[in-house]
């Protein structure tokens, strides 16, 4: 039997940090993915692939199953509230209730420098190629457009920021 959704617990980023840890525990193993965004009910980021809760023995001897998402890269100028749900993709389906947490501001500045990881340079070159094609002929095939957006999303990974104040 699949248990009803358990409470979703969000642990806020600790102190002056750019990450968030979100965990979800259930009485039976469940599979799902995390969605979050900056407005209630509007989730602009999907964290996939789905993960399966792992068994964790409790102090009272019972077993709970815990999903864990460690979200890096919240390099914010000012504090920001986030809203999240876990959507289950196992047979029972459904989603948790929404939780919210506040991510601290880090004084991120437009003058910070974004350092691209080496693996992103081929992506930037492909983006330039596709964008140039779109600019020249005015259209992209469905595959080209999908690839363009995927490249944009994936090029945001692995980047490093050198803060304007020297951090």
């Amino acid at each position, binding site marked *: 039997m699949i248990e009803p959704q358990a409470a979703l617990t969000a642990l806020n980023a600790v102190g002056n940090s750019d990450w968030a840890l979100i965990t979800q525990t259930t009485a039976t193993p469940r599979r799902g993915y995390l969605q979050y965004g900056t407005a209630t009910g509007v989730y602009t980021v999907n964290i996939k692939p789905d993960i399966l809760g792992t068994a964790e023995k409790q102090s009272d001897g019972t077993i709970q199953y815990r999903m864990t998402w460690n979200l890096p890269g919240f390099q914010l100028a000012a504090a920001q509230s986030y809203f999240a749900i876990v959507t289950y993709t196992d047979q029972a389906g459904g989603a948790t209730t929404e939780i919210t947490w506040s991510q601290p501001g880090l004084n*991120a*500045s*437009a*003058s*910070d*420098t*974004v*350092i*691209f990881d080496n693996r992103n*340079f081929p992506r*930037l*070159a492909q*983006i*330039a*190629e596709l*964008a*140039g094609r*779109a*600019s*020249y*002929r*005015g*259209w*992209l*095939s*469905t595959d080209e*457009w999908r690839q*363009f*957006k995927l490249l*944009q999303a994936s090029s*945001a990974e692995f980047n490093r*920021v050198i803060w304007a104040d020297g951090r």
Partner: protein
Amino acid sequence: MPYPSNQPRYEFGSTDKATMGTIANSAISFIQKAPLRGAYDTWNTQINGLTPTYKATGPFPDKV
């Protein structure tokens, strides 16, 4: 092999075509020199603001 003229595609208006040129130039400049966060954020905003029109059935011209 050229993309068949009767296949679905996304078409860009004149504003988006110009923006695509800017996006391409920015991407090249990012390869040449690490950008400031402000420029990088602007670039992402430009990409996210593109509003191509999905066209399902052709035939289409080579250029629009």
